[in-house]
């Protein structure tokens, strides 16, 4: 009996050792850290550079246009590489330096690119089904603001100085209705980079600003994040030509044609194409000319006369 007790106690004492054994059972891999080498990033292959004006984050840009770029590579047999400028200005600069061959930009930036020799060759059909889009002035649903004139003395948040739908078009409409930038108690731009359209909606929603200006279609992006009933669209601007594809100055016209051809061949009614187009946030790509953007040029000119230096 006494021996049994002693054995039992030894067993209890040895029990923790079994745990100890379990804890060390993980095997390690021997790695020699002494073999060192300097790492060099391989040289980029020669490819047509494609850039999406960074109104959203790079990831969104990548995600939206990856399939389209792959399609273009396949359709044209040419190598494409998407590049990611951090800001609108950098985008413009890269086009100017020849680092972006194909630009997908808003009309306002296109006007700047056009000045640098870029030429429009295609524009998109918006998700609304039209090759145009508008800007929207929004306020909170419970706001006392009923007309554009009520916006005087209020705080305004816009997307960016270079934003067409998010600033330029609403500004034009304000000016047409006799409300100048000076009438606002404060005009701010959404902090960047990326997600600037959404930030405007959220700022108004939170009550940080009385009115906000956004591109048409932005509210749909936020339907899962906020209660849209609490946001009211005060007024929508007249439609302007949609986003535009342009190639830089000096880009091969022949290549531009092949690219345009591939773009135009996309048909929303074809399932494969539909995936590409929907992912890229468009319903189709149609031919475009530089003259299509003259209304925008005129708007800009007019604003420059009145805005007091707000336009870049």
């Amino acid at each position: 009996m006494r021996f049994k007790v002693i054995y039992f106690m030894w067993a209890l004492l040895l029990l923790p050792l079994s745990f100890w054994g379990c804890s060390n059972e993980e095997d390690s891999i021997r790695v020699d850290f002494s073999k060192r080498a300097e790492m060099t990033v391989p040289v980029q292959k020669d490819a047509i550079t494609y850039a999406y004006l960074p109104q959203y984050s790079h990831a969104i840009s990548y995600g939206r246009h990856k399939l389209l770029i792959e399609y273009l590579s396949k359709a044209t047999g040419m190598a494409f590489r998407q590049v990611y400028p951090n800001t609108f200005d950098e985008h413009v600069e890269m086009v100017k330096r020849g680092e972006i061959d194909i630009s997908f930009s808003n009309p306002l930036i296109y006007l700047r690119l056009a000045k640098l020799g870029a030429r429009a060759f295609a524009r998109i059909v918006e998700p609304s089904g039209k090759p145009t889009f508008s800007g929207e002035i929004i306020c909170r649903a419970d706001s006392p603001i009923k007309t554009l004139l009520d916006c005087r003395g209020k705080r305004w948040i816009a997307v960016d100085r270079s934003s067409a739908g998010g600033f330029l078009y609403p500004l034009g409409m304000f000016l047409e209705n006799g409300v100048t930038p000076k009438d606002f108690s404060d005009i701010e731009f959404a902090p960047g980079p990326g997600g600037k359209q959404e930030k405007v909606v959220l700022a108004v929603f939170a009550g940080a600003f009385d009115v906000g200006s956004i591109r048409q279609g932005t509210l749909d992006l936020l339907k899962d994040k906020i209660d849209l009933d609490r946001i009211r669209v005060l007024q929508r601007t007249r439609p302007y030509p949609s986003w535009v594809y342009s190639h830089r100055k000096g880009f091969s016209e022949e290549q531009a044609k092949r690219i345009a051809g591939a773009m135009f061949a996309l048909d929303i009614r074809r399932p494969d194409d539909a995936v590409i187009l929907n992912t890229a946030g468009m319903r189709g790509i149609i031919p475009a000319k530089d003259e299509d953007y003259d209304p925008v040029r005129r708007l800009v000119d007019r604003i420059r006369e009145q805005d007091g230096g707000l336009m870049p």
Partner: protein
Amino acid sequence: MDKIRFSTKIGLGTSLIVLLAAVLLTFTFSVLGTRILVDESKKHGRVQAENLALRAVDPILSADFLQLKDLVDAVRNVGSNVVYSFVQDEAGNVLAHTFSNGFPVDLLKANILPPDQKLSIRLLNNGQILIYDFAVPVRIGQSRIGTVRLGLSRTDIQQTINELLHPVLGVSLATLIVAVFLGSLFASRITRRINDLRAHAEALVTGDLMAQAAPKPTANCWEILNCKLEECAAYGDDTRPCWHTAGTRSKMRNGTTSCSRCPVYLTNSGDEIQDLAETFDYLALTLRLHLEELYEAEKAMARQQELLRTVLDSTPDHVCLLDRQGTILALNRAYAEFLGLSPTEAVGKPEETLLPEGDPLNDRSMLEVMFRSGRIVNREVQVVRNNRRLWLHVIRVPVRGASGNITSVLRTTRDITELKSYQVQLIQSQKMESLGTMAGGVAHEINTPLGIILGYAQLLLEDLPDGNPMRDDLRIIEKQTQVCKRIVAGLLDFSRQGESEMQGMCFNNSIMEVITLIRHPFELERVYIVTDLDDRMPVINGNPEQLKQVWVNLFTNARDAMPGGGVIHVRSRLMRDDGIVQLCIADTGTGISPGDITQIFDPFFSTKGVDEGTGLGLSISFGIIESHGGSIVVDSPVPLEDYPQKPADQDDIDYGPGTLFTVRLPLDCSGDDLESL
């Protein structure tokens, strides 16, 4: 193990238990802590890696190496146990890393993240430390644009675990020390009480039954229950709790059958050791009571034994217990003294070696018969002891043991020599009675011829003239014939005892009549009669003539015993309570020798000369007194208190030892005379 002191065992046991618990706790904590910390570190590393992967998306896309470098450096700097981090592009090219002096190329192959896998963790060993390597994909949607790798020091994690374990070990050690201390304290307290119990038990063994092991009850039951039942066994006993006192244990006064809810029990009960101590006390008490009872029983038995021994030793009979071989098992003092030994010396010795050979008691064959037959044997034997022939009555009784078998024989020997002599006397008396009857018959037949002889002799005397020589012869015939007639008359008196005529008579008068008659002739022979008669004049129912004959006989014998003269002291006493009157006649004569004194009442026994007495006087007196329902006894010499006073003028007379005759006669209870007494 058994030789280790109990306190040491308890101390060791407590220490072992705590040590075991401490070891178990420490190891369990170590193992679980290590697991939890490692798991947490893995989660942390994964989060850091995933965070880095998220933040690396834009810089990868924009090929912003500076930002990537900043990112990996930030991760490296923020996490103290982050050994390295680096970012690879889709093709596996390292875009940014935290290593200085070149990148360890083997690291690339150490943890290759397969496509479609979200995480891969590998434990790497670089020869100095262990590293958890986390590989996380950099994704945009379903597309993987690169990989983030993060190295987390497993050694640092272990260091953290060790830092946590140190206080645990410290606390365990401190607990162990405290437990050993408290265990020793506890053990010494327990063993002190056990030692007290042991000392108490030793006291019990050495006979100290009064030792008290348990503490006295803190409060007494009769005080708690306000009980006035003084006859209760527990009442007034403040040395032990009442539930250990017989008479109160089974039934509570307040009706409950169990002590466990009684307020007395709740107040006075203690732990198991106190219970044990109380049980010890109860045991000692019971033992003491039993011992006292035993002692009393022993004393009673000893008393009985002493009594039995006294009875046995007091009896003059010889009592002994013999076994089959004739060995003496026990004997009384009388027999031991007869054997010339002390009782203790005699026990165990064969009886045949102690008795003379040929002694009728020395009979082995009789013992054998006894053991075989089992019957009581009753015998009278004649033996010679100290040159005296004795008659012994021997009774042998078989003694049976508990099993019913005969184990020994009890032999009782009684000296019945005297009884035997009485038997002889009885036979002699019967013979004398027959002789008396025959003598009476003969006397009656002889009386008539004697009368005729006397008558003719007297007629012849009348016929013969004086001077005739025949007259002398005739006178001799006449005289001798008258002697014969007296003898015959005596014989007739002796044989005519039942024919006496009884009447109420004055005892004193009967005596005085005789004394008056004989006083003068006696004084001529210088025999003086002194009377001391009871003046209450007792009356008896008797034959006056016969009684006078008795008195004359006694006085004549007294005179004959005093040839040189003397004093006869006559005293009568009425002993009314006994219903008798007693007459004592004491003389100052020569007395009777011890050999003769038993025969003086025998007929024809006489110490006188041939012509001086017939030897019938005392026999006749004896018969008369007995026929009156009385008794006559003789003492010689006379007891001092009864010795006659010597008259002043009788100094020249020689006084002998004397003889005292005491006659007792029943009083006459029928008449009024008695009432007058």
